[in-house]
């Protein structure tokens, strides 16, 4: 306890230096937390079992794909299919400015199994789904769109369709999507899509949920084979493969992100190491005095490591807490929607990341204090006093 008190008092010696070091770590932890959230999201989606047992069926050579509706029964009656849904993409402008930033991406689908068939909708309010089932023109809209358009639940909006010319549809907002997976999307009913656009012949894609990953692989190859020579030909991939495909397109960006995280961690370690090294150098005589008084080298070393880890942990905690707070405020509409805050809608930071930030800070503090702590360990009492004399 007394040693901790001494560490705290040491940190208060040079308040400016401690504050600047802490600020540097805080900024880096904020960036690291968001970058790590993105990487974690990608990893989770590529590797989770749920994603490997779900199949996405689309047209092979055309984007956006157009699968004939008559295929639907053939696909959904495959042995091993436990549940299914479909998507029809309906895009358009959300106001008359027709700016690309005002574009929305509607997904016509089955409302009855909306939560079960869509990853990331686990936190969607079931009342919203019930409202969608009651209200034919209902739409469940992403939090980002709600904030950007300043919409409220119960309000109506019209989409000036770009995917279906002259088929503008009017919707009534019945719920808000949880942040994360769907940023500029809204879900609405397939029957309203068919009625509003008159398109009953094609669907954009079909989702099949299988018992397990092994069954998914088997069904995928069966469908591939079955539709190999049909017109149009189908492509089947697991949801994780779909994510992986997206990831492979963004691979360079993700690699850069990984490097950014690594560089940030290294940078934090250097900043902390520099600060602790200066402090250690300034306190060489005091360390020698502590040794003279009987403090063992390992205790002196622990004082240095403890100081760096405490500074790192507190700064990391504050940095991650700030990142989480910003993310939460952005998602709940307390921050203005702009490209900087929009990333929080796609990759909202979880509260658990605050603990992660503290641990990262402590780890970086440990890394940064190794050299100064070793120097402190090596302080030779007679040398220090000889230099003073």
């Amino acid at each position: 306890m007394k040693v901790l008190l001494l560490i705290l008092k040491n940190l208060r010696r040079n308040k400016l230096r401690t504050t600047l070091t802490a600020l540097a770590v805080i900024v880096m932890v904020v960036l690291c937390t968001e970058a790590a959230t993105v990487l974690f999201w990608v990893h989770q989606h590529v590797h989770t079992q749920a994603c490997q047992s779900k199949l996405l069926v689309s047209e092979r050579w055309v984007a956006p794909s157009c699968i004939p509706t008559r295929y639907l029964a053939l696909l959904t009656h495959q042995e091993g299919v436990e549940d299914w849904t479909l998507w029809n993409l309906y895009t358009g402008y959300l106001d008359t400015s027709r700016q690309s930033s005002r574009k929305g991406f509607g997904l016509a689908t089955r409302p009855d199994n909306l939560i079960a068939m869509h990853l990331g909708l686990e936190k969607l309010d079931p009342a919203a789904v019930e409202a969608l089932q009651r209200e034919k023109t209902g739409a469940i809209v992403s939090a980002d769109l709600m904030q950007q358009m300043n919409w409220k639940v119960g309000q109506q909006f019209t989409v000036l369709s770009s995917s279906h010319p002259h088929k503008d549809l009017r919707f009534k907002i019945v719920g808000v999507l949880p942040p994360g997976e769907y940023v500029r999307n809204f879900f609405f009913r397939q029957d309203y899509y068919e009625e509003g656009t008159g398109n009953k012949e094609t669907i954009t894609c079909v989702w099949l949920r299988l018992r397990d990953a092994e069954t998914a692989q088997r069904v995928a190859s069966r469908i591939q084979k079955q539709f190999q020579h049909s017109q149009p030909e189908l492509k089947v991939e697991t949801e994780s493969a779909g994510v992986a495909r997206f990831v492979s397109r963004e691979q360079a960006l993700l690699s850069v992100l990984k490097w950014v995280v690594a560089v940030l961690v290294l940078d934090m370690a250097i900043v902390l190491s520099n600060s602790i090294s200066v402090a250690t150098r300034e306190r060489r005589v005091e360390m020698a005095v502590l040794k003279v008084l009987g403090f063992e080298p390992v205790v002196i070393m622990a004082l240095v490591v403890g100081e760096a880890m405490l500074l790192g942990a507190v700064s990391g905690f504050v940095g991650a807490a700030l990142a989480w707070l910003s993310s939460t405020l952005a998602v709940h509409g307390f921050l203005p929607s702009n490209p900087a805050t929009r990333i929080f809608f796609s990759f909202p930071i979880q509260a658990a990341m605050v603990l992660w930030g503290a641990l990262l800070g402590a780890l970086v503090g440990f890394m940064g204090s190794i050299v100064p702590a070793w120097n402190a360990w090596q302080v030779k009492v007679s040398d220090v006093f000889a230099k003073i004399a």
Partner: protein
Amino acid sequence: MSAQPLIVVDNVAKEYMRGSERIVVLRDVNLEIAAADFVALIGPSGSGKTTLLNLIAGLDQPTSGRIWFDGLEISKLDEARLARWRTNAVGFVFQFFHLIPVLTAYENVELPLLLLNLTARRRREQVLMALDLVGLSHRLHHRPGQLSGGEQQRVGIARALVTDPKLIVADEPTGDLDHVKSGEILDLLQSLQQELQKTILLVTHDPAAAARARRVLRIDKGTLVEDRSMHSGRFRLFEWTVQ
């Protein structure tokens, strides 16, 4: 010299390497110091006084020779064991006080006690007693920066005393003080030796400070050349140590 001396220095030599050059700081030093003695170690700069003090206090190891303290051969101990031994056996008083600036007088004196297995109450009792002995009971919560040089040195002495060591080593304890404050500090050291029966080993350049000691050792070029008992006027030359 008592029959069972507190400190025995036997044929001790200390050498350093400066690049490829070998520097001999002490050579064949033999010495015995009785318990409760007040010994001053004098000599010109670079003569090896502080090196000898460091060896006796367990801050450094001799290149050759042996040192015993109260029957324990400290020249054999490793750094960690020496550190533990120092806490109980030796109190240090420095020329520049070397108090921890962020700690109060009370906390500075308490520092060595943190290494001992004492209750908070016992620690408090010992700290208050040590600060009372040096006349600083009214300055417990002042930081070093808020104390005069003389007061800082008193805190340093209280810190040296607080673990109740047998030996107090003081390296130029008055070197950074004016004449009046020096006198007060030397009075204090003298009273510790007389009233608490502490063994004092004082390194000094100051003849007035050396005159307070009961025994004066003079060192020159790494060799003890004079051993004088101040009260008996006994004087002895260590000619046999000169190479």
